[in-house]
């Protein structure tokens, strides 16, 4: 910490000096140590702000199921269901051996859509088939978010785009 002067209270209406600024630095360090902002918070805020102009339905997390498969605990599979007014999106997340994850998804009711996945790296894009199935074979771990769009440009009757909340892979 900053060395302090003799034990007299400095005037409150005096200009700030180096001791004051040093103290403020120390206070900043102190609160960074005892109550730090979650490191991924800015990233999550950026994520949700980047959706602000889309005309979208926001799906909410309806169900999450963690089931360990295989012998080792690390090999687990998660199934997550998102519900919006027009669409239910279900995804299963499985770990790949290379540290990425595989995502298999289903749309209900089944339909062809463009599925975009925002990731910590570049966004990924696939289409669902007539049965509403889609898959991303390798997705980097970290924050991710799905957007389901109409399959064609201005396709009539396709409904709005649907976005999920950010999820951690």
């Amino acid at each position, binding site marked *: 910490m900053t060395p302090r002067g003799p034990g007299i209270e400095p005037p409150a209406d005096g200009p700030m000096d180096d001791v004051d600024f040093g103290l403020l630095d120390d206070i900043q360090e102190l609160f960074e140590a005892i109550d730090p*902002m979650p490191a991924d918070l800015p990233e999550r805020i950026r994520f949700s*702000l980047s959706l*602000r102009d889309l005309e979208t339905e926001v799906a909410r997390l309806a169900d999450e199921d963690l089931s360990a498969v295989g012998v080792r605990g690390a090999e687990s599979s998660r199934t997550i269901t998102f519900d919006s007014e027009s669409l239910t999106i279900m995804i299963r997340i499985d770990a790949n051996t290379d540290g990425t994850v595989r995502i298999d998804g289903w749309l209900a009711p089944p339909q062809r859509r463009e599925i975009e996945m925002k990731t910590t790296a570049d966004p990924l894009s696939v289409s669902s088939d007539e049965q509403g199935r889609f898959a991303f074979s390798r997705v980097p771990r970290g924050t991710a978010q799905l957007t389901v769009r109409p399959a064609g440009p201005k396709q009539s009757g396709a409904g709005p785009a649907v976005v999920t909340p950010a999820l951690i892979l």
Partner: protein
Amino acid sequence: MDEPRPASVRASQRDRADRITALMNAARQGSDDAVGEMVTEFSPLLWHVARAAGLSSGDAEDVLQTVWTRLLEHLDEIRTPAALGGWLVVTAKREAWRVRAAERKQVPTDTDAFAELPDKGSGSEERAILDDQSRTLWAAIRQLSPRCQELLRIIAFVPQADYAAVAAKLGMRIGSIGPTRGRCLAKLRAVLADGLEGNPL
């Protein structure tokens, strides 16, 4: 042990003002990258504004989301780069009060502004992460009024270049050559100089 200040703070006020102006202009034109850069730079400050107001971690995260969403709606009203920090801090404080007031109506609670900090527990966690000097400082801060604790925590996260603008927004007096020390810093210095008499750690 003054650490060198981060580059963003060391840079002259002029450079910083130019940079913030450019970010604000780009954000007005819809640049997600510019918005993202502002979010990265100012979110720690806003986190401590919300937490100093006594919010839970979850509520503090919600407040930050709200503040940033609102900033994008009000970007045109913030005329100078120096005004950005002050606008963000005041908006975060207001939003935090609103959330606290809504919660008080729902659940009777007498938690004070620092209810969630480690000092309410056994203290072992705090002891584990703080060195002696930080513990001395922490003990001194806790002898101040709740208002001073909140104020010092907030201004500690304000970049020096923005200090005058934010301090003015928080009701601190600005002297002819800049911000004055203020009652809270003066008191803290006195407490530290007295060696925390009667308040063994």
